[in-house]
């Protein structure tokens, strides 16, 4: 289907068409109910929350918010559970059973429940491709993740503005969302601000996306509209960096950084890193998790939870005999090399998608590009 041109009210109709199918999540400001407000002068990241209207989505650069990955790859999930009778004579054998109330939701509780995600940026979409490579392409497919990938409709938005931390183009990405979504929406200039566009170029990328566009109508996009979209994209591209750091390009970044593993710059970086994992928890591509054994206070229920973790926390590499990476500089090296290599060797480009969240949310002012800069500063990357 060729691209369509939708007016603001038609975009709202598109949003409502999605809401009739299930909840629609989009980037929103504000705190979860019950969350403690941040100290004065400190920001909290935008987060994906169920929205009622398209205009409630805060379409800021990706780095201002949490990644969209948590809608598919849940931060904590119960993997398996068992129960047993505990009479006075002593506990009985464990039998598979449901997790107790209050445990994280079980693996794949409702695979068919449709939902939509609105306002996904090109970098978050590229990150989903990286997560797919880990969770869906090996010998085992994660049933929870795969079911949510099937059930979720993705409406991706072209960036109309380069954020201060953005560098997608330096990782092989683009401000225009690539494949792996249902619709790509490009707000056309003309309205007040990137977000206040009056017309939107909408390109279906799947049968589901085509059906949605049929439902709301719009008109075929003329040559002028396509040119206007190209102009928007061109101006964003012009504002984005072309290389990670001086000479580092996606094709050579991993090899070049691997040659700097003995640089003293790592000691300086390790001295600043707090090992807090803020970078991993805001990273749209980080897939690593812990499996945590839980047992109820009355010892009658046991369950295993998967929880996000980070290779930067001290325990990540702990074995019975020793900790493989007790030294923080080695955890940083392990992390950086993974971000600079393609995910599972199947995706193009780097694992890093250039969203800039690690540098935005690191309390110590580090992040992927800062790490590369330190390495560069110390004699230059070879």
């Amino acid at each position, binding site marked *: 289907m060729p691209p369509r041109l939708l007016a603001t009210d038609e975009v709202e109709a598109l949003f409502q068409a999605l809401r009739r199918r299930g909840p629609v999540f989009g980037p929103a400001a504000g705190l979860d109910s019950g969350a403690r407000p941040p100290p004065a002068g400190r920001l909290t990241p935008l987060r994906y929350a169920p929205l009622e209207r398209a205009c409630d989505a805060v379409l800021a650069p990706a780095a201002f918010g949490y990644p969209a990955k948590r809608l598919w790859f849940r931060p904590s999930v119960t993997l398996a559970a068992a129960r047993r009778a505990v009479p006075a004579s002593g506990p009985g054998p464990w039998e*598979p059973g449901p997790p107790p109330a209050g445990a994280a939701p079980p*693996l794949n509780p409702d695979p068919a429940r449709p939902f939509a995600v609105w306002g996904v940026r090109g970098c978050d979409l590229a990150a989903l491709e990286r997560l797919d490579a880990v969770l869906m392409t*090996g*010998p085992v497919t994660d049933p929870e993740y795969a079911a949510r990938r099937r059930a979720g409709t993705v409406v991706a938005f072209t960036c109309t503005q380069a954020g201060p931390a953005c560098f997608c183009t330096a990782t092989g990405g683009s401000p225009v969302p690539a494949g792996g979504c249902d619709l790509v929406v490009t707000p056309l200039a003309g309205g007040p601000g990137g977000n206040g566009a009056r017309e939107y170029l909408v390109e279906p990328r799947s049968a589901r996306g085509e059906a949605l566009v049929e439902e709301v109508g719009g008109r075929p996009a003329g040559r002028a509209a396509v040119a206007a979209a190209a102009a928007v994209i061109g101006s964003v591209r012009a504002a984005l960096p072309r290389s990670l750091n001086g000479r580092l390009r996606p094709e050579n970044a991993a090899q070049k950084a691997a040659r700097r*593993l003995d640089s003293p710059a790592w000691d300086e970086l390790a001295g600043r890193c707090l090992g807090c994992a803020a970078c991993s928890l805001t990273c749209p591509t980080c897939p690593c*998790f812990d*499996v945590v054994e839980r047992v109820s206070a009355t010892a009658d229920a046991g369950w295993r939870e998967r929880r996000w973790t980070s290779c930067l926390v001290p325990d990540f590499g702990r*074995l019975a005999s020793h900790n493989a*990476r007790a030294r923080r500089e*080695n955890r940083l090296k392990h992390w950086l090399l993974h971000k600079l290599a393609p995910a599972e060797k199947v995706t193009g480009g780097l694992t890093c998608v250039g969203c800039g969240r690690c540098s935005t949310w690191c309390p110590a002012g580090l992040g992927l590009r800062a790490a590369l800069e330190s390495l560069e500063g110390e004699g230059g990357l070879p």
Partner: protein
Amino acid sequence: MTGCSGWVTPNPYQPVACRVVAAVPETSDTVTLTIAPPPATAWRFQPGQFNMVSLYGVGEAPISIASDPADPEGLVQHTVRAVGRLTRPLTTLRPGDTVWLRGPYGRPWPLDAWRSRDLLLVTGGLGLAPVRPVVLAAGRARHLFGRIELLYGARTPGDLLYRDALQEWARVFDMTVRVTVDAVPPDQVWAGPVGVVTRLYEAMTSRPGAVALACGPELMMRFALQGLLDRGFPASDLYVSLERRMECGFGHCGRCALGPVKVCRDGPVFCWDELAGRVWVEDQPVLQAVGGGPRGPAAARRT
């Protein structure tokens, strides 16, 4: 990719309740459990693969499968050393108790590719456990292989695994078995050689042309591999089994990642030349010291 050919359930993390049918102490801290999977589960594994073994309320850990892949009753054996939260209670299980398994996982020893070759099996400590299925499988299909030589090193005579079987293998399977111990405490008797396992290289009859595997503590594998390379064994004939922290067992959790390699899925068995030039970052770059192997930061060697 081999991997998960065992129990296919919709939830890859769901373990299956299995009954312990025998628990035989091997050493003061190590027990071999014989486990009966439920009859409905079509249990198949290949030598070198592992299971995720668990107890509810305690935890889960990767444990090598130590039994005969062609066991007529489909029984599974695990030899477990008590080192922590899960392995301690595992070694106290009694016949009739329940243990939970999921698997098998990992890439096996490529026995098919080794057909008609001489085999040299260099093992240390608990590293004999994942090699026992190789001995049993190759022993049963003895005509498919050339000479078989097993070198095994333990800390003390009291730490030897499968002690009675060692001599039987030599006799029944027509293979050479050489055993050494690092030290003999005053309360133990030992008539065999004393010294690290690589001391057995002086007496061994295997020559380059044989396929060699090394399995045991990483430091032992380092010296075993270097010794074989020095004797002219090509890297493409050397195999190792690596051990790293694991949470999922099938390539998702990232805990076992060594650079681009995931030990659970791409290993635990690797041919040494597959690891050449791979970059891993660890505090103790033990295997990085072996010629032609993986690379890592020299700075880490300061520790």
